[in-house]
């Protein structure tokens, strides 16, 4: 399968990474190198094989559905690039 420039642009947008027009051909080439390498997987007979969910056969632990932590708004916000009045601030989302 070959990735064209249009697909590269679409994937970049899906990943929310801005890629300039003139960088798209190189990106498409890199994708094709990597996907070409991955294509080898088609040689493997995977008929009837379960896709791996967990590498160690352990049940996930359950715990009480209770509050164990909280009340640290200042710490939560301390690394924010823009925090105001106890909130994360972002550009306008809704018109």
């Amino acid at each position, binding site marked *: 399968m070959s*990735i064209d420039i249009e697909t*590269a642009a679409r*994937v*970049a*947008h*899906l*990943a*929310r*990474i*801005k*890629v300039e027009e003139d960088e798209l051909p190189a*990106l498409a080439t*890199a*994708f094709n*190198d*990597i*996907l070409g*390498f*991955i*294509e*080898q*997987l*088609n*040689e*493997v007979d*995977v008929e009837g*094989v*379960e*896709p*791996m*969910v*967990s*590498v*160690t056969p*352990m049940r*996930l*632990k359950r*715990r009480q559905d209770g509050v164990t932590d909280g009340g*640290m708004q200042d*710490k*939560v916000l*301390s*690394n*924010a*690039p*823009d925090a105001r009045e106890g909130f*994360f601030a*972002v*550009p*306008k*989302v809704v018109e």
Partner: protein
Amino acid sequence: MTDLTKLKIAEARDALRKGEVTSVELTEACLTAIEGAGALNAFVHKTPEIAREQAAAADTRIKAGDAPSLCGIPLGIKDLFCTKGVASQAASNILGGFKPEYESTVTSQLFDAGAVMLGKLNMDEFAMGSSNETSCYGNAVNPWRRGNDDAQLTPGGSSGGSASAVAADLCLGATGTDTGGSIRQPAAFTGITGIKPTYGRCSRWGIVAFASSLDQAGPMAKDVRDSAIMLQAMCGHDPKDSTSADLAVPDFEAMLTGDIKGKTIGIPREYRMEGMPEEIDALWAEGRKMLEDAGARIVDISLPHTKYALPAYYVIAPAEASSNLARYDGVRYGHRAKLSQGDGIVEMYEKTRAEGFGDEVKRRVMVGTYVLSAGFYDAYYNRARKVRTLIKKDFEDVFAQGVDAILTPATPSAAFGLGEMTEADPVAMYLNDVFTVTVNLAGLPGISVPAGLSKQGLPLGLQLIGRPWEEGDLLNTAYALEQATGFVAKPSKWW
């Protein structure tokens, strides 16, 4: 006592307990060594104040007779670990200025055991790389050189700073993480020992996530005993990581008897790669002979799906990374791009991530996005997860036949020059992990032990792979190999 930084953890522990040295002296010696090793670019955030404070506290504990093995031992911490109040950037610009309000479980456990943190160590950005060349801090440099050639070599990656710092005696040990070989490959490139434990042994809580089903922390140290001591302190169940194993942690150091009589060691034929340098093949044969001489039974085994491990990895790891790295959106921490008039939230995401991520990280996030996208999920992601099941089954089959451990080369070459691979396509760099990545896909413990020198005088490592949860037994086999190889070479100081 001279050359305090050259001490191994076990030696320093014994000297501390006997009162022959203090942690403050040991720590000052390391801080001085770090100051003189700027050329290696191993330590990227130094924490001398924290180190001195922790060292003084450790000395008090030791005097009071409360001295766990790591009490007073100066360590370096990979930048991937969140350390409270100390920059933790995963070597990425997108986490520029980030200072966690919390401490990772692994570093908490090390500090509870009395360890001293000298600073944070260089690495590939988000642990994505095999040469430490994707770091926002610039390359870490290998203290080893090819004889008198002053070309700078890579310490490997992603835990390149950790490897460089331990090999150059800037610290007594360091933490690493390993998603596809990021502990074992740099350990092999720098003549030190590094173990990736079984998936679930070390809590991942507070370690910046790359590929959650593959990531494991582990120690990088000067020998097998030191690795056992550090691993002991790093392991254990943590309710904050749902994949952390609720299993007792044995006394790994006490299991180092060096006796491997009657053990069965498998040699997988699929690891004899086309075009593999002759010296790697010779080293592997020597390792086989050494384990045989030590009383182990050597059997040839087959792991038929080995060839497909790297391609499966380069679907699964980017897929998980694209999901994990979605959190870097310029809202909660780290970098946010300057916005133009009229830019909305989508422009903020796209510009922030374009500025904050390096090329390799962007590439992997986008590949991951692609293999998970509608229409390709089954063809790529699900197929890779099925192949992963088969790779794990290969190992289960040989363990069921009575194999205790598997011996392979650690890397397909010795350390290469910084910049030597830049012209190659990304896949050429990925081949560095060809011998190590199977172990992550199968969730097994693997250890790299220095075993010899290349013709150019660079260290080469052998890898041993063990049964799940049997790190103790694996460390003991590695200990027997270490005794047989008698590897003691150190890089000559040029920095």
